[in-house]
């Protein structure tokens, strides 16, 4: 309990320099968690998007249900459900990191499926027809003509999703990963300097997010080069 009053607070910024090494290790875990989830949800999202566009009605229905359910849940509830609930009900004991990757992938693949779906729909159908009339098979027309154009359209949306993954990955710390957030919580209980340490962790996330946006702007410019 903190006595409320006008006692001036003494900032202890030395804590920051003392703990920067720990934060470096936390940063690596955050990057690992985010990168794994990004790659897996990029792949799974595409599969779900294709299932939603499939001519088979049951497949479409399953994919639709997947998207609706995972977009309605919050990551925190889903992590608790996988890490504690599923573990005891099915006997699958995942490490906090693995549970985090599963939860982040399931949630973000649902959003990515919608981004891919609208991008695939935005590719001029004439392109596919032209490929087919040139003798391309359906699979080849998709992989060499439609998909590359769709990915280009999808990039800005996918980048926003990646930024969400990085920010949301902080939630995984609650079940015990030592990512940026987990390290911050640990150090706060050690140094008792919550303001300094949480400000530092905020700065880390902000720097990550701004770097990703900057990299994305460069990537988008590069992808548009052929149009210039």
């Amino acid at each position: 309990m903190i006595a409320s009053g006008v006692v001036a607070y003494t900032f202890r910024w030395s804590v920051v320099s003392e703990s920067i090494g720990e934060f470096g290790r936390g940063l690596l875990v955050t990057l690992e968690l985010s990168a794994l989830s990004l790659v897996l949800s990029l792949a799974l999202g595409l599969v779900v998007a294709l299932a939603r566009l499939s001519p088979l009605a049951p497949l479409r229905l399953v994919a639709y249900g997947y998207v609706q359910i995972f977009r309605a849940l919050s990551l925190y509830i889903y992590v608790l459900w996988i890490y504690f609930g599923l573990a005891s009900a099915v006997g699958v004991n995942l490490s906090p990191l693995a549970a985090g990757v599963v939860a982040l992938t399931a949630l973000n693949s649902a959003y990515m499926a919608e981004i891919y779906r609208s991008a695939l729909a935005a590719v001029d159908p004439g392109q596919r027809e032209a490929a087919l009339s040139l003798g391309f098979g359906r699979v080849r027309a998709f992989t060499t003509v439609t998909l590359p154009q769709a990915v280009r359209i999808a990039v800005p949306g996918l980048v926003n999703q990646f930024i969400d993954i990085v920010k949301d990955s902080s939630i995984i710390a609650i079940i015990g990963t030592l990512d940026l957030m987990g390290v911050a919580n640990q150090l706060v209980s050690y140094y008792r300097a919550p303001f300094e340490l949480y400000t530092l962790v905020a700065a880390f996330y902000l720097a990550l997010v701004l770097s990703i946006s900057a990299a994305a702007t460069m990537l988008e410019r590069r992808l548009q080069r052929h149009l210039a």
Partner: protein
Amino acid sequence: MTVAYTYTWGPVLDNWDAFARGAWIDVWVTGISFLLACVLGVAIALFRRSGLRGLAWPAFAYVQLVRGVPLLVFLYWVYFGIAIVIGVVFTSVQAAIIALTLTGSAYTAEIFRAALGAVDRGHVEAAAALGFSRRDTFRIVVFPQAVRIAVPPLGNIFIGLLKGSTLISVIGVPDMVFQAQQINLSYFTPFEPFTAVALILVVLVAAFAALLTGVERALRLP
């Protein structure tokens, strides 16, 4: 290794009223934070559109800064960090509302900025031609149209905040996730209570999405 798990829904069903009270806390905390985020968002959007660099630049920086920091960091930062520095003890609900409002306002600011920009210039010129003051032009002509444009994306922000509100139990707000954890701690049955809150959240999100569709339909111009 796999001991068959016996599902025991009793504790969840017996404590349905605790879940209902918890869910209600999530909803009203979200509602208040959303309203405050809208007010703050309009102010920031006006700053950004003011044409004065001294106002526009800080507003831009605020949006970039806040959007780059996870909600969980804000929750801890407000509840533990700010509280110590300024020597005020926030209740966990107050801290939750402040954190959700901060996060939400950066997004609503961008929505209002786009919506204000999307209102036809011709309407502003017509109002000026009719002798409206700048203030009346904004209040009677521009703002109501901008709000109509902003409603669908604002609805998405509301749902985003509702999902974010499920985090507030980490600083001790007795919301529905908190209740689920209490049941898990008392009965060691994690699957059932966490499934219950997942279902409640899905239902709440579906209900608000339906409400939003209704509002959009009511606001649609004939």
